[in-house]
C-alpha cells in the first residue's frame, strides 16, 4: 500500500481528536466545573468565636512559621472598652502578602487558637502589587448569625479559658448593648 | 484607725532595743496588731518609717508570718491544731464543730466581729492533744463539745480561763503581751505538768538515754 503523504496523515490525528472528550476548562465561564478539592490550600481566613470576637491573639507564630516571610502581624493590648479577642492580646495588624505566599499551610499548623485556616478560594489575581497584600479586614470571616462585630466585651461571666474550651455558643444581649452603645457614641 | 503618738513612742522603744533596729520588726508588728486589731497599711508605713526601711520590706515580713493578719481579727482568735497528732485525736472534729458554730472557715472573721477561726500548726502541746488556742492561750484536751462551750461562754462575755490557768483577755491584749512580754504575766499558769513528764519518768525508771554522739561526726 502506497503511503499517504505525511501532511494528510497529520490531519488524521486532527480529525480523530475532534471526536474525543474535551479536557480544557472554560475558565472563568465554567469555573464551577472543576471546583478545588476540600483540602485545597487557598486563601487564608481569620476565624471568629461564636460571639464574633476574633480568634487571632496576635502571637505571630504564623509569621514565624512562614517560610516565605509572607505574613506580618502586629499585636496589641485589649483595652477596657476596646476588646477584639478574648484574653490580653489581639492582632491589631494582620497582613498576608499573596505575592510571597506559597500556600504551604505551615502557618495553619502553627496557629495556637485555630484563628488561621485556609479556604478553597484560589482566585487571587490582580493588576497591582498593593492589592495583593491582604489586610485583616480582607481575611476575617464574615459575621455569622449570632455574632457581633468587635470591639465588645467577652460574654459576661466567662474568661478566655472558656473561649478556648469552646464553651461560647453565641453573643448574648449584654454584648449587643455594648456594640449598640459604641455605634451610637461616635 | 490611726497609730497614736503614744504607740509611735512604744514602737520606737522596741526599735531601740536591738543593735540592728530592724530586728525589732516582729514585736513592732505585734504592737500594731494590739492597737489596730490587724496589720494595717498605716501600721506598715509607720514601722517602715521608724526602722528606715521600705514599706515593701515590712509588707514582705507581715505577709510571710501567719500570726500577722491583714484583716481585723475581732475580739478573740480561735486556733485549732490540725497537724497529724491533734488532727487524729479529734482536732479535725473540734475544728469542724467550731466552724459550724461560728459559721466561718479558715482565717475568717465571724460576722459579729467576735471571733476569728484558724487552722494552726503544731503548738508543741501534743501531750494534751487535741489542742485549741484562744488568743494564743492553751485549751488542752478539748472535745468538740468543750470547744464549742468555750466559744459560747466567750460570746456571752463570761470569764474563761485557759486549762493552764491564765484568764483569757482578748486578742489585742495578747498581741500587746507578745510585743512587750515583760508585763508580769509570764509566769501565770502551769508551764509543765505531770503528764508532760511521763516520758521522762519512764525513761529514768528504765535507765534509757539517748545514744551518745560519735566523736568527729558533727
Amino acid at each position, binding site marked *: 500500500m502506497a503511503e499517504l503523504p505525511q501532511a494528510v496523515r497529520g490531519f488524521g490525528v486532527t480529525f480523530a481528536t475532534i471526536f474525543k472528550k474535551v479536557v480544557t476548562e472554560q475558565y472563568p465561564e465554567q469555573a464551577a466545573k472543576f471546583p478545588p478539592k476540600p483540602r485545597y490550600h487557598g486563601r487564608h481566613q481569620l476565624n471568629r468565636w461564636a460571639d464574633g470576637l476574633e480568634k487571632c*491573639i*496576635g*502571637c*505571630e*507564630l504564623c*509569621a*514565624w512559621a512562614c517560610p516565605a516571610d509572607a505574613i506580618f502581624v*502586629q*499585636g*496589641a*493590648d485589649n483595652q477596657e472598652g476596646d476588646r477584639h479577642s478574648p*484574653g*490580653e*492580646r489581639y492582632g491589631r495588624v494582620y497582613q498576608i502578602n499573596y505575592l510571597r505566599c506559597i500556600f504551604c499551610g505551615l502557618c495553619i499548623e502553627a496557629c*495556637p*487558637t485555630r484563628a488561621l485556616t485556609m479556604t478553597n478560594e484560589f482566585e487571587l489575581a490582580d493588576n497591582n502589587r498593593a492589592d495583593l497584600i491582604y489586610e485583616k479586614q480582607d481575611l476575617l470571616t464574615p459575621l455569622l448569625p449570632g455574632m457581633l462585630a468587635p470591639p465588645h466585651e467577652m460574654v459576661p461571666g466567662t474568661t478566655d479559658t472558656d473561649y478556648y474550651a469552646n464553651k461560647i455558643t453565641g453573643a448574648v444581649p449584654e454584648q449587643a448593648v455594648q456594640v449598640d452603645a459604641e455605634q451610637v457614641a461616635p | 484607725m490611726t497609730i497614736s503618738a503614744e504607740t509611735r513612742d512604744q514602737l520606737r522603744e522596741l526599735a531601740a532595743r536591738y543593735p540592728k533596729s530592724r530586728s525589732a520588726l516582729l514585736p513592732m508588728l505585734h504592737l500594731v496588731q494590739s492597737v489596730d486589731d490587724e496589720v494595717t*497599711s498605716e501600721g*506598715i*508605713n509607720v514601722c*517602715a518609717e521608724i526602722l528606715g*526601711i*521600705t*514599706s*515593701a*520590706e*515590712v*509588707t*514582705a515580713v507581715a*505577709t*510571710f508570718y*501567719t500570726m500577722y493578719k491583714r484583716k481585723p481579727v475581732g475580739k478573740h482568735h480561735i486556733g485549732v491544731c490540725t497537724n497529724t497528732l491533734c488532727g487524729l485525736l479529734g482536732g479535725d472534729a473540734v475544728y469542724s464543730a467550731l466552724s459550724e458554730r461560728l459559721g466561718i472557715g479558715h482565717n475568717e472573721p465571724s460576722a459579729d466581729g467576735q471571733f476569728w477561726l484558724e487552722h494552726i500548726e503544731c503548738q508543741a502541746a501534743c501531750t494534751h492533744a487535741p489542742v485549741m488556742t484562744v488568743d494564743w492561750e492553751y485549751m488542752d484536751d478539748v472535745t468538740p463539745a468543750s470547744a464549742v462551750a468555750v466559744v459560747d461562754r466567750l460570746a456571752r462575755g463570761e470569764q474563761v480561763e485557759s486549762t493552764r490557768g491564765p484568764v483569757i483577755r482578748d486578742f489585742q491584749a495578747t498581741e500587746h503581751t507578745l510585743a512587750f512580754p515583760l508585763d508580769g504575766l509570764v509566769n501565770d499558769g502551769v508551764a509543765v505538768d505531770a503528764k508532760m513528764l511521763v516520758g521522762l519518768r519512764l525513761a529514768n525508771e528504765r535507765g534509757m538515754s539517748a545514744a551518745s554522739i560519735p566523736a568527729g561526726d558533727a
Partner: protein
Amino acid sequence: MTITSDAGSDLTPQVEMVTVVVDGVAIEIPKGTLVIRAAELLGIEIPRFCDHPLLEPVAACRMCLVDIEGVPKPQPACAQVVSEGMQVRTQLTSPVARDAQEGVMEFLLLNHPLDCPVCDKGGECPLQNQAMTAGRPESRFDEVKRTFPKPINVSAQILLDRERCVSCARCTRFAEQIAGDPMLELLERGANQQVGTAVDQPFDSYFSGNTVQICPVGALTSAAYRFRSRPFDLVSVPTTCEHCASGCSLRTDHRRGTVTRRLAWDEPAVNEEWNCDKGRFAFTYQEQGRVTTPLIREDGQLRVASWPEALDFAARGLSAASSHGVLVGGRSTVEDSYAYARFARVALKTDNIDFRVRDSSDEEAQFLRSAVAGTAVRTTYETLEQAPVVLLIAFEPEDESPIVFLRLRKAARGGTRVYAVGPVATRGLAKLSGTLIPAKPGAEPAVLAELAEQVRAELQAPGAVIMVGERIAGIQGGATAVLQLAQATGAALTWVPRRAGERGALDAGALAGLLPGGRPLTEDSARAAVAAAWGVDSLPATVGLAGAELLAAARDGAIGALITGGVELGDLADQSLGRAGLEAAGFVVALENHHSAITELADVVFPVAVVTEKAGTFMNWEGRPRPFAQTFKDALVMSDAVVLGMLAKAMNIAVGASDVAGIRQELGALGAWTGPRAERPNVPAGPVAEGAHLVATWRALIDNGVMQEGEPYLAATAHLVAATVSATTAGALGNPESVTVTGPLGSVTVPLEIGAVIDGVVCLPLNSPGCVLYRDLGVRSGQAVTIKGAL
C-alpha cells in the same frame, strides 16, 4: 561577668587556686569560685534562673542542681563554692543531676500558664529554652493551676504577671542590692508567694526597667513594649545611650524602621549590665515633631525649601555677616562637635563658640580648659569602685548620671565612703550611705576651704576621687575651690557633665579658647599645628566670646550671624537673654532634628539626624570614647557634620572631612595636647544670697526633658514633684500640705515634703511637670524665693 581590673595587679594578694573536676575535666580556679562559674569556664552550661553574676547567690530556683561526690544530695551549683579536689557531675554525666533538674523543671512548670503565644518573653525566654533542654517532655500534673488576676502594675511602667513568676528573686535582689530601691519584695509564703509592692507604693525606681530585662520568665514586662513585637521580628544593633554622660552600652531593637525597645548591653567597664529607665524607655522622641526638610524664612514665615536653595540662602547669609557665633547644644557627638569647632574657626573665622548653652560661667570655662579638656583618663568606673573615698560637689548622681550612681553604690557597699557637699542629704546619698557636708547653696567654696581635717585627710589617701557636676558653673568660686582642694589633697578630680555630648564637645574644641585635644587657642604652637591640620594659614588668635557673653553680644547687635546646633532655649537660666540674643542676631542658621523655640527664631533650618540615623561617638564623663554605629542603615537624614560640610562648600570654603571615618582620622591625627595648659581659674567665692529660703535645684532624671516626650509610662514613674524643706522650716511655715513658691517671674504651687535639707533652703526640681524654675519662677540655684502655705 565583670572583668576585674588588671591595673594594680601587683597589689592584689596572691589568689589561692584549687583544682576541681567537672564532668571529668579538671580545672584550676581561684578558691571561692562558684561551681556554676567553674562549669561555665569549661563550656559546660548548667541550667539556671536565679543565678546572675552581678547579684549575690540565693539558690532560689533550684534549677542548677548538680551531683557532687561525697555529698548525699544534689547541690545548687550557683551557691556552692569550689573546694580542692571537688568532683562535680552535671546533668551531662550524672543521672542524679539530670533527674533532679527535670524534677525541678516539672515543679516550676506546675503553675506556669501556657501564655507563651501572648507573652512578651516568648522567643527569648530562659524558661522556654530550658524547659526544652532540661525538662521532661510531658508533665504529670493534671490538676487545676494556681491563677492570679493578670497583669498588675507594680509601677506605671512595669507590669507583673504573677502566674508566670518562678520566684527566682532576681528582681527583688536587683532592687535591693543594685538599685538600692527595695520597693519590690517577695510577699506571702508557700504556694502563694508572689512578687509585690507595699499598698499604694509603686516600684518607682529609676532602674526598674532592668528587672524586666533580667526576669528569666515573662513575669515582669514593660507597658511600653507590651505586645509590640516578637524577638524574631527585631533587628538588634549595639549603640550608646544619648541621654547622659554615663555612656551606657545599649542594644537598640528595631522593626520596619521603628525602634521598638532598648536594652542595657553588657559593658563591664562602663554600665556592667544595667541602665536607667530614661535610657531604656525614652526613645519615642526620635520620631515625633521632626524637621523633615530644610526651611527658610521668607517674609517672616518659614517655608519648605530644597537643599540647594537652603544651602545657598544660608551661605549667603553667613558670608554677608561680619561677625559670627556658634552655639552647640550639649547633645552632639564628638564628630559633630568637632565639625562645629572646625567650621567656626575655618569657615566663619571666629572663636565665638560654646557648647554650654545652659547655666555657665567664665570660671567654668577656665576650669574646663585648664583641668578637663584633653586630659588623660584618670578616674574611671573601675577606679571609682576601688576608691577609698569619693567627694561629690554640685552633683546628684542618681538624677544626673545614674550609672555613676550605680557604680558608686557598688563601691559604697564595698566600703567606699561617700561625702556630698551641698544643702540636701538626698535619697540617692542615703542609698550610698553617704555623709552630707552641709553647705548653703553658694556657700560650697567656703565649706570646701574649711573642710574638716578628717575629710581632708581621707581625701589624701591614694585613689580618692572628687566628682564635680556641671552645676559647679552656677557657684561663684566653686571651680576654683574644687581645684584648690584637689591640688591640696592629691585627690583625682573628675567633671561629670549631665549631657552625653558635653565631654566630647570639650575635647573636640567646641569652646572658645580651646582647640581639639585640649589645645589652648592662645598657644602659638597649638594654633599652628591645628591650622596646618585644617589646611588654613591661620586661626583666630584671640579667645572668643562664650556662654552668656556671646548671647549678650548677640542681643546688643554685635553678632551678625549665629549657627545653632541642637540648642534648647529652655536650658538657659536667663531665657529672655537667649531669646533676645537670637532675635537680635542678624541671621540664624539652626541645625535641628525637632521643631522647637529655636526653629521658630531661625532664618534657615536644616534637618539633622538623631542618634539612630547616624554613626558617631559620645565621650562619657571618664573621657572614654563610646563609638556607635548607625542603627538605621538606610536613613537619609544627614548628621550635623555632613550638613556643615555642605554649607562650607556652598560658601566655597574647604573644611575637610565631614564623614565619621574622616573626622575620626583627623581627630586621631591631632591627638591630645601635652604642652602647657590654660591658666586655672582664680575666682573668689561669691556671697551667699540673702533671704529666708534659698533654692537648691537640679534636674530630676525623669522630668520635662524634650527627649522624654511621647513616653507616658516613663513619665508616670517620675519622683514626686515637691518642695522639700527641713522639719524646722516646714514648722515655721505651719506645716501646710502644699506651698506656693514665688520668684521674680511668678510662682508655682507644689506639695510640701519634709526631708534632710538644711534650714532655710528649699529643694525644688528644676524642670519637672508643674515646676519649671527658669520659666515659672525665674530663679536659679542659690537665689532666694518666698514661700507661703497654699490654701
